[in-house]
């Protein structure tokens, strides 16, 4: 029997995953050449970060059958990166990481196209992020993770039964390493917990009391933080310190050395200065490699369904022996970022005042004294008096107008609810639909509430 001959790809192992049926597969797994080709043709992956983890991720994803990659990173290459950020050479020092990383991977792996973006993640608009099938994070900051998480969750829509709508789900794969420890996690907004649901997993940064820094420094880190937090302002009045400016960092280092000499404290080095100021723990190349491999594999599983995905948080610890474990965290149903929020349907004529009154009677809310915010704009604030005054005139305007006359939107409200005579203050997410507005073509939604 002459079956069509399947062209082997450059990677036999990938073919084994994608061309053959299996038992422990994900939903909608449809093995075959078309799957492999579609992976190359239709899946666009954004890698956020081109540092230690980002370099690994780009290489791993490119070798896993993804052909359309983009990478975003605002940093330039430093000498101290070269030991582990293996795509970079000495002559690349000073060049943008994203650009060099993209070029090096394309040189080595035939057929892969990587578009670099040398800028901050906040500089890109929402349409930029909307374009990707999946976003993979190789970052070292909580702020940046929180930002991308909020972006990915902002695409998410729910149907009238509070079920996430598949076509609005933007999956994230998040990797992170700190020395010998690392994690890889899968965030399917609306299905698995988002970054904000479990932000407590990240311990807050240790902050030294300022008076200790000023009066009784005992460690090298104290001397560095003194230069960073106190001395800088004393000398450079008004000029903000930029941790990404090597001149600024050198200044901090020199001041920290002077301070350490004064108090007879050993151990201030340039790399420790960078580490303390930027809150970086020395990176270990093999931790990056392990975490990246896990992330790239999850990206492949999510897109192709060739296996069940990690559910949903893998930790790796190579510090004492080797320990790895997967924990299934649960979503915070009331999460302000990924949760569905309470569905409310309104006439376009309803004023903000009327809306606030409605919240008091709404059986799922029973919210009194509500303050209302929409996309970062304060519509009405109960307190303090200065804001109440500034927002009071909105009370007589239709909410529809205040929300920019779109058929639907997300509103956040704070206020108090009473349960069994005890008052608790709450912050809730609401998704508001307006009746009879052009643009609501979805009967499922229009008929909800």
């Amino acid at each position, binding site marked *: 029997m002459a079956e069509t001959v399947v062209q082997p790809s450059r990677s036999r192992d990938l073919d084994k995953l994608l061309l053959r049926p299996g038992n422990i597969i994900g939903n*909608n797994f449809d093995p075959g050449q078309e799957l492999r080709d579609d992976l190359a043709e239709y899946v666009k992956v954004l890698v956020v970060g081109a540092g230690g983890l980002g370099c690994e991720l780009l290489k791993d994803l490119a070798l896993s059958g993804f052909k359309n990659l983009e990478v975003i990173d605002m940093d330039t290459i430093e000498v101290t990166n070269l030991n582990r950020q293996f795509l970079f050479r000495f002559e690349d020092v000073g060049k943008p990481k994203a650009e060099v990383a993209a070029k090096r991977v394309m040189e080595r792996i035939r057929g892969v196209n990587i578009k670099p973006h040398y800028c901050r993640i906040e500089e890109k608009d929402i349409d930029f992020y*909307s374009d990707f099938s999946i976003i993979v994070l190789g970052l070292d900051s909580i702020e940046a993770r929180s930002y991308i998480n909020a972006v990915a*969750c902002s695409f998410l829509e729910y149907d009238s039964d509070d079920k996430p709508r598949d076509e609005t789900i933007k999956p994230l794969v998040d990797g992170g390493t700190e020395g010998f420890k690392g994690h890889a996690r899968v965030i399917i907004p609306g299905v698995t917990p988002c970054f904000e649901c479990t932000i407590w997993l990240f311990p807050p940064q240790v*902050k030294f009391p300022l008076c200790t820094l000023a009066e009784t420094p005992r460690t090298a880190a104290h001397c560095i933080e003194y230069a960073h937090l106190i001395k800088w302002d004393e000398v450079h009045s008004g000029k903000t310190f930029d941790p990404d400016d090597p001149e600024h960092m050198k200044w901090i280092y020199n001041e920290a050395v002077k301070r350490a000499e004064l108090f007879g404290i050993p151990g201030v080095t340039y790399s420790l200065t960078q580490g303390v100021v930027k809150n970086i723990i020395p990176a270990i190349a093999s931790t990056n490699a392990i975490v990246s491999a896990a992330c790239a594999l999850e990206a492949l599983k999510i897109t192709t369904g060739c296996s069940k995905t990690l559910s949903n948080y893998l930790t790796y610890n190579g510090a004492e022996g080797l320990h790895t474990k997967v924990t299934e965290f649960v979503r915070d149903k009331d999460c*302000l970022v990924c949760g569905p929020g309470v569905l409310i349907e309104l006439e376009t004529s309803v004023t903000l005042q009327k809306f606030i009154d409605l919240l008091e009677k709404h059986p799922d809310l029973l919210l009194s004294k509500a303050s209302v915010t929409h*996309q970062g704009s304060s519509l009405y*604030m109960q307190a303090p008096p200065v*804001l109440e005054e500034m927002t009071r005139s909105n009370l007589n305007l239709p909410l529809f107008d205040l929300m920019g006359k*779109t058929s639907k939107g997300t509103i956040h409200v704070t206020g108090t609810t009473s349960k069994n005579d005890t008052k608790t203050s709450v912050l809730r997410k609401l998704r508001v639909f307006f009746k009879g507005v052009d643009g609501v073509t979805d009967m499922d939604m229009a008929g909800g509430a």
Partner: protein
Amino acid sequence: MIRLFKVKEKQRELAESANGGAPIKKQSAGELRLHKDISELNLPKSCIISFPNGKDDLMNFEVSIRPDEGYYLGGNFSFSFQVSPIYPHEAPKVKCKTKLYHPNIDLEGNVCLNILREDWKPVLNINTIIYGLYHLFTEPNYEDPLNHDAAAVLRDNPKMFEANVRRAMAGGYVGQTFFTRCM
């Protein structure tokens, strides 16, 4: 999910630039929590909050404190607050904008208040911080010095400390340092 991506890509090719739905501006979780803190503020008359950038930027605001007792009675001290998008995971950055003579606040406006740094916890809020700042004026303490000289004077000679504070607030020199009037 690949089928979904494929469908979307095809749709995108067909639609060319036809954009479905206006882009959504996302609000950080920090902004939302701050909004709650602000809407629940319950401040004494001596503390007044203001929003220099208007009602839509709550992440940067100012608090002025007019202590109604203690060494600093009659003075008016202004603090700037900068709140991070990952608030309350991280404490706000608070600086004193009024140059003052105080053992726990240095001449650059750095403030030594435990809940702003080592003792910050996400369950605390803006109200707690403002009360903490107020407390610094009613109970300045020489044990956590940021202004070393002021702390030494408070410890060794409270009468002289009081006189120095009055002089600084009225506008004048204390030692080598000039203070502008803030009463």
